[in-house]
């Protein structure tokens, strides 16, 4: 692949990689040809049932041992008590659960006012409007209680993930061995499908909010660890020395020098924790967590599009609000006050917020509308929207278009492709993946690819894994066909680039669940809807990194090509795209990771892949099977992740960009 390699050894190596890959592809083609001509023995096409080891049972046995004999269950049930207490408190405050301290629920007006004041403090009028507006919308549309159910878990899970992530991040920075242990675990955790978090949470921490909070917390920890250790490593050595020369003890160093100096990275970590928590807390609907996710799940299940749409808007508003506010916090720097500024001026915001809160709470004791918007008082237009959307979909040309797309994609593209992928013999498929890894990255990655995919074959879920892979590959391909041109065109004009980037950034904060809404609206509950939801979800990083890659091409290079008399197309093909490719590859990789994530969620629509099996395990206690399935998805995702990232890294080095 890397034909324009600069140094000789690299060139030779990439040539050898190419040769290896070609040889592997050759064998795969021969095997497939044999299969088609019916000459291939059956055991070479698919592993016979008899050879497949029963991983699920072994894992189950191991879990039972850990759970019961080692007493882990007793420990987690003990932890559950504490967590449950916390959740009860926040539940009481946010939506009036009848538990200690029996103060709640906080009137919606008071909460909206406080959030608006926080928004103003962090980012001026715009954020105040966004924060207050989101709360008012939620209340008026009649979703206050379910939103607060979600928020009450978020309010416990996010701080918990922050504290654990921060501590582990500090430990990983301080002790090399912790770092060595944590790193690989993190990369697996980040590719593990969320269904795999859910079941253990249910088994060890009971169904409902507690398990939801645990799964959410675990899901959000990894980026906090990474950002913390990154930030601590980046503290300038002179600041460290200044701390030492000031006579700091080790603890004082950490408390007063390292952590405050790493503030930016730590706050970026906080932003990511909040966003991941929100994304996950919505998904915990699958294990019976009440709240926005559960409602959305129910509404989509009964095809109530209007209500689904309204809930989608609430989730999106909540996401955008949390994201913008936490990002504003990242860039907020301390400001000094002139000498002699009175107390009330220094703490203006605090006083305004507190008095608004107090005042509105008092008012709401008298005026019930200020405390809660009851049933029938809200402005929900669910039914009307529903008829509207359905009427729109019934318009002749809309129906014709979606119908045509559905039929065309299904019959002409998707199903033939799927059948083709299923027809390839298992060993041939593994060799093809290995060839892909060898050509792009190298021998090490190819060996990993073989090991990982062999495990998938041995797990006994090969066909479903292939269907998963087929959804991912076809969705990402379609996403690339649409996303890359958009990115390239947008990058041509600065104005458009910034606009589209803003859209992408915003879209990336949406919890993945909401992407199902437009898919179901347009295509109903079909295979095409699955592909469509993955497609829009995966398109976001593709567009984003294409624009960023093209924009980061050094100006003197584009100027040089202009002066060399290149046309726009020549410039694009010969200068901009080659230089942007490593960055674009990162986007491509993210698109694939997103697709693996989405394909599992889309199982809700009804697919025949690993996701559906995974979802089924949630109903029971098939912990072993759940894990095997989860690891299958994770291993496939890891193969791509490793290969593409390695390729991007090599390419960057060759181009002198890294």
């Amino acid at each position, binding site marked *: 692949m890397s034909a324009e390699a600069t140094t000789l050894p690299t060139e030779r190596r990439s040539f050898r990689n190419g040769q290896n890959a070609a040889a592997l592809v050759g064998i795969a083609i021969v095997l497939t040809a044999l299969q088609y001509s019916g000459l291939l023995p059956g055991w070479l096409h698919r592993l016979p049932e008899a050879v497949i080891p029963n991983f699920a049972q072994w894992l189950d046995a191991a879990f039972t041992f850990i759970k019961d004999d080692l007493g882990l269950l007793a420990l987690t049930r003990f932890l559950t008590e504490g967590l449950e207490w916390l959740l009860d408190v926040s539940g009481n405050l946010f939506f009036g659960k009848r538990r200690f301290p029996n103060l709640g629920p906080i009137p919606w007006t008071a909460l909206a006012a406080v959030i608006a004041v926080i928004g103003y403090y962090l980012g001026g009028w715009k954020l105040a409007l966004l924060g207050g507006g989101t709360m008012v919308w939620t209340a008026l549309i009649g979703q206050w209680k379910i939103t607060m159910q979600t928020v009450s878990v978020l309010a416990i899970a996010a701080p918990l993930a922050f504290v654990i992530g921060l501590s582990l991040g500090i430990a990983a920075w301080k002790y090399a061995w912790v770092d060595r242990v944590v790193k690989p675990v993190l990369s697996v955790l980040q590719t593990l499908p969320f269904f795999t978090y859910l079941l253990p949470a249910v088994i060890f921490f009971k169904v409902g909010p507690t398990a939801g909070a645990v799964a959410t917390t675990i899901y959000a920890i990894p980026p906090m660890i990474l950002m913390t250790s990154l930030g601590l490593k980046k503290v*300038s050595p002179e600041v460290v020395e*200044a701390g*030492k*020369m000031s006579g*700091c003890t080790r603890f004082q160093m950490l408390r*007063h020098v390292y952590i405050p100096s790493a503030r930016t990275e730590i706050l970026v970590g906080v932003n990511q924790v909040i966003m991941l928590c929100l994304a996950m807390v919505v998904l915990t609907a699958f294990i019976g967590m009440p709240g926005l996710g559960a409602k959305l799940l129910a509404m989509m299940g009964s095809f109530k599009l209007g209500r689904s749409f309204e809930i989608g808007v609430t989730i999106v508003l909540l996401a955008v609000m949390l994201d913008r506010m936490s990002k504003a916090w990242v860039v907020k720097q301390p400001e*000094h006050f002139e000498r002699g500024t009175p107390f009330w001026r220094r703490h203006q915001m605090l006083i305004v917020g507190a008095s608004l809160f107090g005042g509105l709470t008092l008012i709401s004791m008298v005026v019930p509308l200020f405390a809660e918007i009851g049933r029938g008082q809200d402005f929900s237009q669910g039914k009307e929207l529903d008829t509207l959307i359905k009427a729109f979909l019934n318009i002749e040309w809309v129906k014709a278009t979606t119908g045509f797309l559905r039929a065309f994609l299904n019959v002409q593209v998707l199903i033939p492709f799927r059948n083709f992928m299923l027809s390839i013999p298992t060993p041939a498929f593994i060799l093809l993946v290995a060839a892909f890894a060898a050509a792009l990255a190298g021998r090490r990655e190819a060996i990993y690819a073989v090991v990982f995919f062999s495990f998938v074959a041995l797990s006994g879920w090969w066909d479903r894994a292939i269907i998963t892979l087929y959804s991912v590959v076809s969705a990402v391909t379609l996403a690339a066909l649409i996303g890359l041109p958009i990115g390239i065109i947008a990058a041509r004009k600065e104005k458009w680039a910034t606009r589209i980037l803003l859209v992408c950034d915003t879209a990336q904060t949406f919890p993945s669940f909401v992407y199902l809404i437009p898919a179901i609206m347009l295509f109903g509950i079909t295979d095409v809807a699955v592909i469509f939801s993955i497609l829009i979800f995966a398109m976001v990083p593709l567009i984003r990194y294409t624009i960023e890659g093209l924009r980061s091409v050094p100006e003197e290079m584009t100027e040089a090509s202009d002066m060399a008399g290149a046309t726009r197309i020549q410039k694009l093909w010969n200068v901009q795209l080659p230089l942007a490719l490593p960055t674009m590859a990162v986007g491509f990789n993210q698109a694939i990771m997103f697709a693996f994530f989405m394909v599992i969620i889309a199982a809700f629509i009804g697919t025949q892949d690993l996701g559906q099996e995974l979802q089924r395990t949630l109903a029971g206690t098939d912990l072993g099977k759940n894990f095997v399935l989860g690891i299958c998805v994770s291993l496939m995702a890891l193969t791509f992740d490793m290969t593409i990232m390695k390729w991007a890294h090599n390419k960057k080095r060759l181009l002198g960009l890294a």
Partner: protein
Amino acid sequence: MPADTPVISCKNVWKIFGPDPKGFLKSMPAGMTFDEIRAAGYIAGVKDVSIDVHKGEMLVIMGLSGSGKSTLVRCFSRLHDITGGTISVEGQDIMSLAEKDLIELRRSKMGMVFQSFGLLPHRSVLENIAFPLEMRGQDKHTRRERALEVVKLVGLEGREDYFPRELSGGQQQRVGIARSLAIEPDIWFLDEPFSALDPLIRKEMQNEFLRLQKLLNKTIVFITHDFDEALRLADRIAIMKDGAVEQCDTPDRIVQHPATDYVRKFTEDVDKARVVHAGVLALANETGEGTPVDASATVHDMARMLVNDARDMIPVMQNEIIIGAMPRKDALDILLGSET
């Protein structure tokens, strides 16, 4: 000026970077050069340095980047642990100190100023300056009092509540200086304190620094890569190259008698008349006659007099006492270049 025991005394100090510095130093044959050590996979940050710093003295360590000057000063305060040799501060071997005692030493005796200031970005000017006091557990009131005092000393009144990013480079370094002085240290380390500043501000800060030194009379180790700055400030200069000290002497003697070719490269372009003092030229066994000159006057200061005066021997006076006389010809040679 030199007291009996040096404040800092280092003997045969080595600082080697690499996979196993201690083992390498032990097995290393004597007399290996910097490049030979590098070929063996190690970097000699400090190479067999012996140097004393006396009470109230200002020692300037001068060298180009990578010469080991910053490493050496970090060995003095044990920000780096040395590989071989001994360093004692006020008679105590600092390598034998436990962490607690080391912290105590830094809290009570040492202050350090950094090239890029090393200010804590989340603390205001006053909080940065009070930081060392806070670390040693002084109460809020006293540390505020003291910090305000130092703020005044470095001329930052009215900026107490600013944050570092709201200040100019020169002002930030004033904060750095103030912080290092807050605990009233006996020993003051300055690691290229003015290198990050633009030339005009640098000059202003040098003057400011000389004023402070006259006021406080600390024992100072000052690092610079600027030979003119070294000449301007130093009581003694140590010139370093490849981790080793090439020459350590007073500015007068370094410009007059550079020990090595490397040192000569620096002194060649220096206007010696602005460096050499009457006191250095004075011969103790001569007396001369007529109006004496002051020992601290440079040849440049005396230029007009040297040209107009007819005496061969001019008496030199230090603290109202005649310490000898200087031959006018020697001074003129420095002023005009010797006849060859």
